[in-house]
């Protein structure tokens, strides 16, 4: 499945180039940690142990220090996720206006639990905190795209290709 069983052959040249490009904007290599993890994740969907160790080496950090950073942030995935992560908001306004039902509906459609990958490896559903669009609650984010006023119909549409 996606990357988990693939052999890790080091960071790609593209990844290294993108990470190095970030370094010019900061005072030291440590500061690039989060950007670097996000770059790796952009290319591989998630950050595996060997990837984390390779990034730590590149930034001259201990893997433990980088792991501390990776596990702190909500948007760094240390477990495999589907190609598209669907985040539904579970903060207060969305909660009031049916956010939880959106989460349940998404999981039901994909036949998954929260955080689990769909059988085809395409999707993972996760809750997320307020997405800053409370005037259009309930809100979800499909990959990079915000979805407003999410109804059962809108959920159906996500999976209709």
């Amino acid at each position, binding site marked *: 499945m996606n990357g988990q069983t693939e052999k890790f052959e080091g960071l790609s040249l593209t990844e290294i180039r993108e990470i190095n490009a970030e370094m010019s*904007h*900061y*005072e*030291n290599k*440590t*500061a*690039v*940690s*989060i*950007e670097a*993890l*996000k770059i790796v994740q952009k290319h591989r969907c998630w950050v595996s142990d060997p990837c984390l160790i390779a990034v730590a080496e590149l930034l001259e950090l201990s893997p433990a220090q980088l792991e*501390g*950073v990776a596990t*702190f*942030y*909500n*948007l*760094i995935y240390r477990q495999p996720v589907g190609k598209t992560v669907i*985040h539904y908001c*579970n*903060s*207060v*306004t969305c*909660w*009031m*206006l049916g956010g939880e039902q959106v989460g349940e509906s998404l999981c039901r459609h994909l036949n998954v639990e929260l955080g689990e990958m769909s059988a085809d490896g395409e999707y993972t559903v996760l809750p*997320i*905190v*307020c*997405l*800053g*669009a*409370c*005037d*259009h*609650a309930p809100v979800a*984010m499909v990959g*990079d*795209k*915000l979805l407003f006023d999410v109804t059962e119909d809108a959920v159906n549409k996500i999976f209709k290709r």
Partner: protein
Amino acid sequence: MEIMDKPLTKNIRPDRAFATLADYESTGGYQGLRKAIAELQPKDVQQWVKDAGLRGRGGAGFGTGLKWSLVPLDNLSQTRYLVVNADEMEPGTFKDRMLLEQDPHQLIEGMVIAAYAIQAQRAYIFLRGEYHLAKLRLEQALLEAKSKGYLGEHILNSEFSLEIVLHTGAGRYICGEETALLNALEGKRATPRAKPPFPLVSGLWGKPTVVNNVETLCNVPHILHYGVEWYQGLARGVDKGTKLFAASGRVKHPGLWELPMGTPIREIIEQHAGGMRDGYTLRGFLPGGASTDFLLPEHLDTAMDYEAVAKAGSRMGTGAIIVLDDQTCPVKMVLNLEQFFAQESCGWCTPCRDGLPWTVTLLKDIIAGKGCIEDLDTLAGLTRMLGPGNTFCALAPGAVEPLQSALKYFRADFERYIAMERA
């Protein structure tokens, strides 16, 4: 004149399109910067903003000009940083996203003026990782600004140069706390730092650093362009200028409006948001985001001013009103809020790390019919234990605000769950 009444949102269109550089310039854009650089010394710019009475729009309301004036300017070769807090994540709040997505040049101009005022050579925008559209638009706007000489080396042919770096976060509410934000920018876990030293003296990589909210900086170009007197004249109350106010929940027209400071809450909820949806009545509201105390319908005539809202028993916070209707259970609403805060606690200090999950456990038990009346005392005790002065940062004190006020105003709802169990 519309433009003069609503300086922050004059370029904002209903279709979510964004103002290009040409659009922005056509409504007076970058005139404030031209004036600052051509006619004013850094100290003068600080004074203008101080005189205007601009207070930070991120929630705390600290005087912006005063903040800038505390940055040591003595040795001009010293490194200083400006950091924009664009990590909007206060539940119920959606004001900065609109400013970032739809009028990115306004923020950029505000940043260049602020950086000039504190003589910073580099500025960072700490943008929330989830704000993908804002990222794309800021990237484009930064290129445009650079190509026209508003940014980069020798801005408008002056001695002043500034580099702006757009940094995107990876999601964590605590990054909105300014010292935690600095740790995140340094590539570390976003735990808050002990203060003092304050970031103004020792901030990013130990250098003097000003952290300002997006909306705060968006006010700055207009103060410079139209003047202090005009700015003060915008307000209806004690505090100056306009503010982005919002309402969400079961109101007829949830939304965001730029209104004079001091606008009564009643006007925001009843006129702008159109009042409650049919079949619902107003039970209470959080006036400024999730971390503010509940207020009741009897407080509707409170003006949205920092002191007025404080006097009513809450905080203006981000100015984003979350409405509680009569068919939403306030106990469950508070549980949702405390779950959020417990999850987002960085775990750095014990009261917050252990206290917030405790409130969640107690609230869950009460709702499940497993609570007892003493639990309400325990909850009240926790609100004091997690209050100001007992934790590293303001997360826990903010977290207990809706809880303490819910215990005060909606006690009968808590007791009903407990009585249900007895029966």
